[in-house]
């Protein structure tokens, strides 16, 4: 018998009683996600510049970030916990973020580099020929033109991170993952908590994904209009 007979599958009164906690955990979820994506994006940009400047480094960068992407998240926590320390809130936050960021790098670096490499050679040559400095070509021409591909990578990274944040519940963080873990840990399984945690994290992923899609379209009006 999995569920206690007397309790319903979903208990609305629990949601009402714990509304504040749910909100706090949602904010925490968004914070963990936002910081991971922000830091990940910055690091990926640095790595992408490295890979574009010295193409020989690209393979190493994708191999290393590829391995980071493949290691199970639980193993990363177990590995990082003794190094960073999870006895303090800061330690737990940093451990969680290191793991989350490491999952964004492969996707982001690959999309930034691919996006920029896909900029037609003629466009780049014309920009140089007009008298842009190489750094200006990157910022004003190549990055804007790579934006659709970069945004596509950011969307995948976002959805991935939102899912992974729930796992950091094992470190005492976890945002909405807290409810999922707590629901399972109770002596009698408490489905309401699990449903709330799962549903809200899926909804969050959906909203952010849609938001990025719309942001991407707003940033690249030129890509939508006619192609003759």
């Amino acid at each position, binding site marked *: 018998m999995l569920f206690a007979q007397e309790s319903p599958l979903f208990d609305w009164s629990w949601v009402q009683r714990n509304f504040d906690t749910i909100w706090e955990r949602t904010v925490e979820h968004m914070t963990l996600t936002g910081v991971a994506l922000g830091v990940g994006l910055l690091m990926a940009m640095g790595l992408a510049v490295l890979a574009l400047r010295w193409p020989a480094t690209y393979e190493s960068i994708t191999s290393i970030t590829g391995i980071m992407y493949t290691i199970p998240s639980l193993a990363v926590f177990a590995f990082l916990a003794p190094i960073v320390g999870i006895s303090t809130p800061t330690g737990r936050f940093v451990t969680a973020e290191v793991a989350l960021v490491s999952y964004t790098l492969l996707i982001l670096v690959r999309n930034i580099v691919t996006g920029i490499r896909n900029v*037609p050679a*003629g466009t780049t*040559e014309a920009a*140089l*020929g*007009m008298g842009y400095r190489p750094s200006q070509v990157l910022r004003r021409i190549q990055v804007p033109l790579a934006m659709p591909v970069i945004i596509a990578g950011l969307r995948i990274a976002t959805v991935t991170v939102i899912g992974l944040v729930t796992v950091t519940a094992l470190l005492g963080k976890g945002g909405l993952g807290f409810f999922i873990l707590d629901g399972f840990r109770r002596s009698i399984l408490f489905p309401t908590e699990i449903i709330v945690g799962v549903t809200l994290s899926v909804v969050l992923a959906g909203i952010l994904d849609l938001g990025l899609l719309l942001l991407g379209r707003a940033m690249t009006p030129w890509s939508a209009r006619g192609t003759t």
Partner: protein
Amino acid sequence: MTDRHMIRLNDVTKVFPGAETAAVDRLSLEIGQGEFVALVGPSGCGKTTTLKMINRIIEPTMGTIEVDGRDAMSVPAHELRRSIGYVIQQIGLFPHRTIRQNIATVPALVGWDRDRIEARVEELTVLVGLESSLLDRFPAELSGGQQQRVGVARALAADPPVLLMDEPFGAVDPIVRGRLQSEFKDLQSRLGKTVVFVTHDIDEALFLGDRVAILNTGGKVEQFDTAEEILSSPANRFVEEFLGGERGLKRLALLPVGGLGLERGPMVERSASADEARRVMAEYDVDWFGVLDGTSLSGWASESDLARGEVAGLELRPLESTVSTRSSLREALDVVVTGHNRLALVVDDGVFMGVLDVEAIAREITG
């Protein structure tokens, strides 16, 4: 064109990394101010490499390049390039910027104020024959020909003294290409820019260039002269072969009808008698005659038409077979051989100038 050199290449050599032979080997070339020079040659002759060394898109391995009196290597590449217009075959418009922003690229880069840029964009739009309604579109919304006009406008935006063009009309269809070539030639003659133009199309080179440099492998200059001179006396076998067949016809394409003395032809006034008409036909050994009304040519009639009466009463046939003094001799020849009058009628804006027959044209071919 003055004697002053705008571009001077001195023993310029380019060896690409890993290559065994030089793409361009000790090339020296002097291009005068306001001159339109076409670099032409088979693929692999180093013409594009040569062009791209002038604005340092490709850095020379050895040798010196002077542009507008200064050593190109003595200034930062981006500064050098801002004073050299650049048009490439891929056009390379910035897809994320409007046509207006594309044209304004260099003026914005060198810090012109907004009003000056706006005025310049409007001016260039007219100059290159674009509709101003296109200015707020994105490049992907324009046809290939329109895009290349934008490419030319963008290159001219900051009024650089030098223009480098790498097969600029290579990607547009032949009809549009012909029109762009004529328009650009006309534009250049008004602007007086120094232009270096790379093409693999000898006809394009001969049509556009004040002088044409024919390059062989390794950037070896086989001949550097005017189109007329190259066609009438090719320097060697390579040039001869590169010019291909129909050299005489190609030469005719460069010569205007106006350069020849024109005959009056079998023409009579409207008031002339039938006998007078028969006399001019006999004189020119033809079976038709043209009817003049003052300075304009009204039409023509054939010998058999005269059976029906005097010249004044005849119903005239409409004129075909006309060219202007600005037409090339090649066009005139085409008219002579395809029309049934065996003569090209030369008419400028309605004023009859004379006629041209195949013998007169042939005299030009043989020089």
